[in-house]
């Protein structure tokens, strides 16, 4: 009967099966070790970044404290506005990204005189 045959198979210590289990256990240990090393590396990089952001002159020691900020310090850290009237409560201003923000679309050609002119002032 197939059921018996299956039970019998489980009961024996097949050398190749044991080797596979040993190999799988080894691989699992390797994966765990790799994950641990990766986590420690990420934490170390993050800690170094935080330290440098606070240590370098010309950069804010701040991390974001609220939403709606329009300014940003250094390469990437947004700084939230912390006071001011309601007129300053909305977002606007520079992007908080690492680089100069590109427009959503390039300006389109226009063929009419404009009510507003951009020029040096």
């Amino acid at each position, binding site marked *: 009967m197939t059921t018996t045959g299956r039970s019998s198979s489980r009961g024996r210590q097949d050398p190749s099966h044991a080797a596979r289990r040993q190999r799988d256990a080894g691989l699992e240990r390797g994966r765990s070790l790799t994950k641990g090393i990766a986590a420690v590396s990420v934490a170390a990089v993050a800690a170094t970044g935080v330290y440098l952001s606070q240590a370098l002159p010309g950069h804010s020691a701040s991390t974001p404290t609220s939403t709606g900020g329009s300014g940003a310090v250094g390469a990437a850290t947004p700084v939230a506005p912390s006071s*001011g009237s309601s007129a300053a409560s909305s977002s606007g201003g520079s992007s908080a990204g690492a680089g100069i923000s590109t427009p959503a679309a390039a300006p389109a050609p226009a063929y009419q005189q404009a009510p507003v002119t951009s020029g040096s*002032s």
Partner: protein
Amino acid sequence: MSPAASGLDDRTRLAVHHSTRWSTRIEVLVTDPAVVVAAARILDDVLDRVEEAASRFRPDSELSRIHQVGGGTVAVSGLLCDLLATALRAADLTDGLVDPTVGAALVRLGYDRDFSEVAAGVAGSLPTPAPVPGWRSVALDADLRSVAVPAGTILDLGATAKAWAADRAASTISEQLGCGALVSLGGDVAVRSAPVGGFVIGVADVCGDPAAPTAVAVSSGGLATSGIGNRHWSLGDTPVHHVVDPRTGLPTASCWRTVTVAAGSCVDANTASTAGLVLGEGAPDWLAARQLPSRLVRVDGTVVTVAGWPADTLSTGEGRS
């Protein structure tokens, strides 16, 4: 706000409000004529507060207090903290081409009061070239809202503060009044919730020039022009202008007379256009590498466009390369 006027633009049916402030032309356009006065008030409020925080010419401004302390740590408001952070970010993103520590250099050039009092010319002679102190000497702590600036360093937030104000005002007008808004502060333009097809903006050497050689439609973000065609004066017998090269402390000797850039915000457009002007010949590549649509005009009038900026539309009077 002084002097001011409001009206409807005949072609687009936009409500427009004009005024003059900071020796520059100021405009606010809204897509709902019923709210143009409220929009102008919001803009005026933003400008009031930016001036109180960051004016280099007002002895009672927060910025002046930093200078008066002369090297110590000074507590600042959230607004000035934002403005300082914006200026330092611009410096960082441009490797110091746009640097807020150019204030003392501007003072040496005679620009130590409102421009209306400088335009007629000032006594003196061109100073010896010397780098400005540099933005890295400014220590801003946004958590504690404090800043320390070395003694003798004078900050000038003009380049980024004006653009910041345009962004802030346009966002606030659009959000609070529920309309499309364009704010132009002397050519630094911020656009929010534009009508279909965008706001049409002329581009010229000088802000407000009715004979602009081209116009573009902008649907979001910002547009800014930096140039040497305006805000120039005589220092003794030497003509000078207000765009200082931080590397020399002197007016930039650029091959461009104007650089116009479109970006995701007015602050970023202003940052890039000012950097392009200071950078000189390398500007087209620098702007193209950052995918910033730009129009640059050489001193001889030759126009260079990069990153998808469209060809001139209103006249063919200038050369193109």
